[in-house]
C-alpha cells in the first residue's frame, strides 16, 4: 500500500484490494448468474435502445425462475399472503373462508400480529409444527420433531449454514465434502468460500445420470489421501441433470454413508417435480427409517426443501427449511447459535412455506381450484420435459437423457475440433464459446456445462424447461438450427 503525502494529507492506496481481501472469496464462482448472463442483460439493454438484432427478445433459459417464464402463482397462496399483508381484507367477502382462516392463524403466531415483526431465529413455531406434520404425512407416518426443523431464507441459506457448521481441520484433516458432478454451483461456491475440500463424484451419463456406489467409493478413497471426507451431498431430483434416484440407489447411498461415517445432505427441493414413467420421489429420511434402527438411529442427515421450485415457483420469497436427523445435542446447540446470528428468515417466506406444507384439503372451498392449478403446472412441466428430450435427440450432435424430474435438461453436445480450437484461441472454455454464440445469434441464454462440472473432454449446456410450451418449441427449434449451423461452420 503506497503512501504519499499530498498537501499534508496521507494519500493512501485502498485498504480493501484483491490482495488484501479474503482469499477464499476470490475462488467463488456461480455460473448461473455468471458472465453469460451479464452479456444477456447487456443485449436486452441494447434491444431496448433499438439496436437491431436477429431476434426481438432474450429468452433467459439459464435460471430456474418459473414466474419469470410466465408460470402463474397459485391463487390460494397469494390470497392468504395478501390477507397477511393487509389484514383489513379479512372483511372482504371476495376472499374464501379457508384463506382467511390460514391468514388469521399465521398472523396470530407473529409478534404483534404482523408479518413485519421479527420471528425467532429458528422460525415461527406453529409453522415448524406444520412442516413436521407435512414431513410425517409425506413419509408414511415416520415421526418428525419440530425442534429439528429450521426455517431458512431459501434452501440455499440452510445448505450454506450446515456446511459452515461442519467444516473444520487444517491441511490433511481439512473437511472434504462429496458432491456430484455435474452439480448445482451453489455447492462449489459455498465450499470455496468456506475453504473446504470439494470431492467430486461423477454421475453416470450413459445410465441416465444415475449414481454409482463404486464411483462414490473411488472418489472417497482418492480423497482420503489429502483431506478428511465427512459430508456427502446429493441432489434428488437432480440439478442440472434431472435424474430421480431409485429407492435401491438411495438405500445404497445411506449404507455407504453409514459405513464411511459421512453426514448426508439431501437437497430435495424438486421433490414434487417428477415426470418420468416409473420414477418416484423417495425421501432420504423415509428410506433411512425403513432401513431399521441400526441406520435410523445413527446416520446423520440434513434434508432441504424450498418454496422456490416444485409447482409454486416462488423464488422471490426466499422460503425454505432444513430438517436435521441424529445430530449430537451439543452440535445442535452450535447450529442454533449460528442461525441466531442472521436474526430470522423473511416472514413472508415462512408464511408461504406454511401454505405449501398445509395446502387446501378436499373438504375446503379452495381445494378444487388449488388442485386444478397445481396439476396444470406439473403436467405442463412433464409435457415440456418429454418434448425437450424428444426434440434434442433428433439433432445430430446433441444427446439428451430423459428429463426424469426437476426443471432442467443437461444435454451433451459434440463440438467439432475446429470449434474447440477457436474457443481456446479466444480464451474461452468450448461450451462457453458455444453458448455465447447462441446468445448473440438467437438471443437464447443457457448456462455452459462447464459451470456445473462435467467429465473431461465432454461438453454440455443446461437449459430450463420453464418457457411456455409454444415458446419452448421455438427455442428447441432454434437451438437445433443453431447446432447444425455451428457444426457446419466449424467442420
Amino acid at each position, binding site marked *: 500500500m503506497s503512501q504519499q503525502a499530498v498537501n499534508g494529507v496521507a494519500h493512501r492506496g485502498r*485498504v480493501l484490494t484483491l490482495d488484501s481481501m479474503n482469499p477464499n472469496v476470490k475462488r467463488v464462482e456461480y455460473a448461473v448468474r455468471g458472465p453469460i448472463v451479464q452479456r444477456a442483460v447487456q443485449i436486452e439493454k441494447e434491444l431496448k435502445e433499438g439496436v437491431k438484432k436477429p431476434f426481438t427478445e432474450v429468452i433467459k433459459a439459464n435460471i430456474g425462475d418459473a414466474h419469470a417464464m410466465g408460470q402463474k402463482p397459485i391463487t390460494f397462496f397469494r390470497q392468504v399472503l395478501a390477507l397477511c399483508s393487509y389484514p383489513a381484507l379479512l372483511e372482504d367477502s371476495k376472499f374464501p373462508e379457508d384463506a382467511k382462516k390460514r391468514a388469521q392463524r399465521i398472523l396470530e403466531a407473529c409478534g404483534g400480529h*404482523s408479518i413485519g415483526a421479527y420471528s425467532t431465529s429458528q422460525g415461527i413455531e406453529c409453522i415448524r409444527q406444520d412442516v413436521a406434520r407435512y414431513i410425517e404425512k409425506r413419509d408414511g407416518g415416520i415421526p418428525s420433531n419440530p425442534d429439528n426443523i429450521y426455517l431458512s431464507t431459501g434452501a440455499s441459506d440452510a445448505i450454506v449454514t450446515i456446511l459452515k*457448521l461442519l467444516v473444520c481441520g487444517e491441511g490433511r484433516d481439512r473437511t472434504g465434502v462429496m458432491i456430484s458432478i455435474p452439480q448445482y454451483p451453489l455447492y462449489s461456491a459455498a465450499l470455496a468460500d468456506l475453504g473446504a475440500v470439494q470431492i467430486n463424484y461423477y454421475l453416470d451419463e450413459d445410465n441416465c445420470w444415475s449414481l454409482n456406489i463404486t464411483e462414490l467409493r473411488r472418489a472417497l478413497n482418492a480423497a482420503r489421501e489429502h483431506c478428511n471426507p465427512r459430508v456427502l451431498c446429493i441432489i434428488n431430483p437432480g440439478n442440472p441433470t434431472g435424474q430421480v434416484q431409485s429407492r435401491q440407489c438411495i438405500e445404497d447411498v445411506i449404507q455407504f454413508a453409514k459405513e464411511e461415517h459421512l453426514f448426508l445432505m439431501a437437497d430435495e427441493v424438486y421433490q414434487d417435480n417428477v415426470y418420468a414413467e416409473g420414477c418416484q420421489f423417495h425421501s432420504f429420511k423415509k428410506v433411512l427409517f425403513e432401513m431399521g434402527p441400526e441406520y435410523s438411529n445413527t446416520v446423520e442427515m440434513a434434508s432441504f426443501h424450498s418454496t422456490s421450485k416444485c409447482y409454486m415457483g416462488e423464488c422471490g420469497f426466499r422460503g425454505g427449511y432444513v430438517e436435521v436427523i441424529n445430530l449430537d445435542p451439543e*452440535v445442535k446447540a452450535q447450529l442454533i*447459535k449460528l442461525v441466531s446470528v*442472521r436474526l430470522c428468515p423473511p*416472514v*413472508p417466506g415462512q408464511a408461504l412455506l406454511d401454505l405449501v406444507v398445509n395446502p387446501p384439503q378436499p373438504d375446503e372451498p379452495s381445494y378444487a381450484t388449488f388442485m386444478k392449478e397445481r396439476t396444470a403446472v406439473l403436467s405442463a412441466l412433464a409435457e415440456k420435459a418429454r418434448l425437450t428430450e424428444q426434440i434434442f435427440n433428433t439433432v445430430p450432435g446433441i444427446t439428451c437423457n430423459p428429463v426424469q424430474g426437476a426443471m432442467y435438461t443437461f444435454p451433451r453436445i459434440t463440438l467439432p475440433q475446429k470449434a474447440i480450437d477457436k474457443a481456446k484461441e479466444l480464451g474461452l472454455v468450448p461450451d462457453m464459446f458455444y453458448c455465447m454464440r447462441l446468445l448473440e445469434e438467437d438471443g437464447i441464454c443457457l448456462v455452459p456445462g462447464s459451470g456445473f462440472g462435467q467429465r473431461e473432454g465432454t461438453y454440455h449446456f443446461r437449459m430450463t424447461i420453464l418457457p411456455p410450451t409454444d415458446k419452448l418449441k421455438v427455442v428447441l427449434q432454434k437451438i437445433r438450427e443453431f447446432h447444425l449451423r455451428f457444426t457446419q461452420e466449424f467442420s
Partner: protein
Amino acid sequence: MSTVQEVNPRVRGIRAPVNLQGLAACISEQIAQGVKKPFKSVIDVSSGDPHKAGMPPISFIRQVMAVCLYPELLKEKSLPLDVRQRAQKLLDMCSGGSVGSYSTTSKGLPEVQKSISEFITRRDGGVFSHPEDIILTIGSQKGLSVFLNLLTSGEGKTQTGVLTPMPCPHTLPMLLDMTGLALVPYRLFEEQGWAVNLDELHRALEAGRVHCEPKAIYISNPGNPTGYVQDRETIEKVIRFAATNCLIILAEEVHQGSVYGQDKEFISYKKVLSEMGKTYAETMELVSFHSISTAYIGECGLRGGYMEVVNIDPAVKKYLTVTSSAPVLPQLALELSLNPPRPEDSSYNSYTQEIHHIEDTLSQNAKRACEFLNRVEGMSCQPSMAGPFLYPRVHLPPHMVEEAKRLGVKADVLYCQRLLEEEGICVGAGCENGQEDKNYHIRLCIMTPPSTLEEILARLCSFHHHLLEKLV
C-alpha cells in the same frame, strides 16, 4: 456421529447469545397454558421491533404489498387509486410481473437501485449516488455480513480487526465472531450523551494494533442503542481519523429516518465526505447500510435493506454479490418508503397522518421514559435523539452482583432475567451491546403504544425499587 469438536471452530467461537427472548417466549407459553404469574402477559421490548411492541404497520405500504401479492386486487375499487397504480408500477419491475420471481440482477431490482440512488442524492443535497453502487440486501445485518466476509483475513496477530463502538448494536458482536473479525472496542462517552471521542479512538486503535490488524471502523449513526446523532464536526473528525489510519468506514445509518431530537439533524457520512475535498472524497473507502426494519415503517420481519459502496475497488466490488439474491417484497417496500405518496395522491393524507402519529409517539415516549427513569433511584438515562431504543444505566446492588458471580452469569443478564420472571418485562442486557465494564445498562424499545410504555415503566420501577430494598 459428529461431535462438537468437529464443528467449525469459527462457529464454536461465536459468543453464546443471551437469549432472554427465549425465556420470554417460554413464560408466554406457560401463561397460555394457564400457569399463574404475577402479571397477565409478557411485554418484550428487547429488540427494536415496533410491530412486536404493538405499533401498527403503515397502511399504504401494506395495501400496495397486498395488491402486488394478489394482483386480482388491481380491480378492487375499495382500495385507493394511487395504491393500485403504484402496485402496477412495482409489478412491472418484476420478471413475469410476479413478486415470486428472482430479482433480475443479483444486486436487486434495477429500478429499486435507481430509486435508492435518487433518494440518496436528494437526501445529500445533490451529492451524486450511482445505482451501480447500490446493493439490495436481506437486511442490514446480512449486508454487513457479506461485506465483512470480504474483509476478513489472517489469524492471531494478523487477524483483521474492526473498531467497534461500546455500546454497539446487540447483534454485532456475534456477527464479528462469525466472520472471524476481532472486535476492537472504543468507548462512547455516556456523560456526553454517548458522544464519540477522538482521543478514545486513538487509544482504541493503538490497543487494537497490539493483537490484530484493524482495517475498519464501525460507526452507528444515529447510534444504536444510544440514539446519539453525530454532528458534522464529529463526522469530519472521524473521517480524517479513518483516512490517516487506513481504516474503511462501515457506516450503519439505519436509524436516519427516525430522528426526533430537537434541533438534531441526520447528516450522512457520504455527504460530509463529499464536502471535504477531492483527496478525501475520491479515496476514502466507505460503506453505508440502511434497512426497512427501522424508522416509522418498522418492517423487521420482511428482511430488507441496501448498502451503498463508496470508493470500493471495482475488482473487489463484484464479489459482493454472487449467489444469493434479496427477496423481492422487501425491495418493493423499500421503494415505497423512499417514494411515499405525494400531496396530489389519494393516500397522502392518511400516510402523512400515520407517519406523524408514530413520530410523535416515539418523541413523546422518549421524553417521558427518559424523565421517568431519571427519577427512579439507582437509574439514570441519557436522552435519546433518534431510533427506537433507550439505554438507561442501572445501579445493581452488591447482592445481585455476587449472586450473578455464583450463578456464572453476567450481572446485567441476571437483572434482566429477574425482571422478566417477576414483572414480565423483557429488556436487553447491556453486555449484548458489548458493554463489558461494571456500568450496567439495559436496552429497551420505546417505539410502543403510550399505554404499553406506561405499563413498562411502572413494572420496571417497581422491580428496581424492590431490588434495592432487598438487603440480601
